[in-house]
């Protein structure tokens, strides 16, 4: 019985750790994509304004 409780606690630790890390990785990816999009937009704007000056 006690062995099962201990095993269940370890399994729950892994599940909780996976949930936390999983969401963190997902969030980091979201921010990375957002940053990449922002960079692209600002570069495009730069190019347009440089073309306008020419």
């Amino acid at each position, binding site marked *: *019985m*006690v*062995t099962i*409780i*201990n095993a269940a*606690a*370890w399994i*729950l*630790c892994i599940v*909780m*750790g996976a*949930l*936390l890390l999983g*969401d*963190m990785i997902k*969030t980091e990816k*979201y*921010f990375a994509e957002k940053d990449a999009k922002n960079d692209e937009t600002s570069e495009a704007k730069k190019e347009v304004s440089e073309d306008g000056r020419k």
Partner: protein
Amino acid sequence: MAENNSKSNNNSGSKKVLGPVHVWALGVGIVLVGDFMGWNLGIKQGGSLASLIGLWVMGCMYAGQVMMVSEMSAVMPESGGQYTMAKYFLGPLAAFNVGLMQVFEYTMLAAGDVIVVGQLLNSVLPGVRVLPFTILTLLLLAFINYRGAEATLTLNFFITAVAFICIMILLFATSFWDPQTTLIRLKELTNGLPYGKLGLMAAIGYSCWFCLGIEGTAMAADECRSQHRAIPFGAIAGLATLLISGTVTWFVCSGLIPADELGDSVYPLYEAALATGKLYVFVALFIGTILSCLASANGCINDSSHAWAALSRDKMLPDLFAKEHPKYKSNYRAIIFLLPIALAFAMTGLLDQVVTFSIFSALMIYLLTCLMLYRFRKMYPVGKVKRVFTAPLFPLLPILVAIIVVCGLFGLHLNYGINLISGAVFYLLASIWFLKRRAKFIDKDKFLDAGLREWGKPEEM
């Protein structure tokens, strides 16, 4: 003024969902665990009476702290509690230290809480291993905090209320009101002041365990619907609750367990429940101890991550920790970063060491808070900046609070001198690192900009 405050607070992006009840729950939830474990070290150091005197002396100190913090937090242009106050009134180095002390005060407290959860489960079911339950408890609470303050504090309110009711169940189970059937034997079981004045000083240091962390309520200002009402009201109501529960805890435990046994107890309230011989009391106190530890660790993770993120937002730490979760609006990076630190300390299982470092950090913050109020009154006298609440008896109040804090530090050093020196060396090294590596990133004009815009130029720097 209020509009200005709320405008600047909106910048952080946190949801404004908390009322006075949430603030009360955050304060009491972090601290109520002090009734369930740790406070009885004061009895070991100074005797039964020293512990009770220490509770009320420290209660006066905390009343002073709450009044000082309430005056300053209500006019702050941003959240962060004592850290923000230190930033505007003492400068970057003091602010860095206060922020770091807050982080370690709460991280150590969280580590202590989960140590107790693991060890209590182990004491009930001896085959159960401490380590997986210690880790699981921390991970579970970190996950709840990760999902945002609203879920965290609603849960805190519930478990704090249950833990408080459990103490009351124990009190009434002793039939204290009836001299014929009462289980309370204060005269036979207490030992007064066996070590005299020095013992009393030592007990005062540990007595702050009854209320340690109540000042953390000021850090929730950013998420309050009306911080001017919620913070002072929630904090004072919380302190009153803690003084009542602390006195009841001392009364019941001292009346049920002999003083020499009580001083060494790991779970004093739980052992007092066992001494009643009533099954329902035993079950209630087991649940109460577990829930109070969970509530405390829950609030501590919330507060430490707030403090860590605030340091990062001001560039005192690398700015990657300042990012909020896009959905839950929590300081998710700070929560994940502090998790292994809390785990590392919790896995040592050294409860007294963890507790001492937490108390030392807290007492240092209290000392600096006295200095902050003094500076605030010098820089912005009472007529110059509109205050929602004004702390009475200035300058006597900060002086009295500082004297009690110094007595507490002196009392702690009697038995844990090496720990205090280690703590001081740690903060000294951190300060050197800050001056060498981070001070150059701080834009001094921008750093104080929000405060100067809100209050104008100070009368005295």
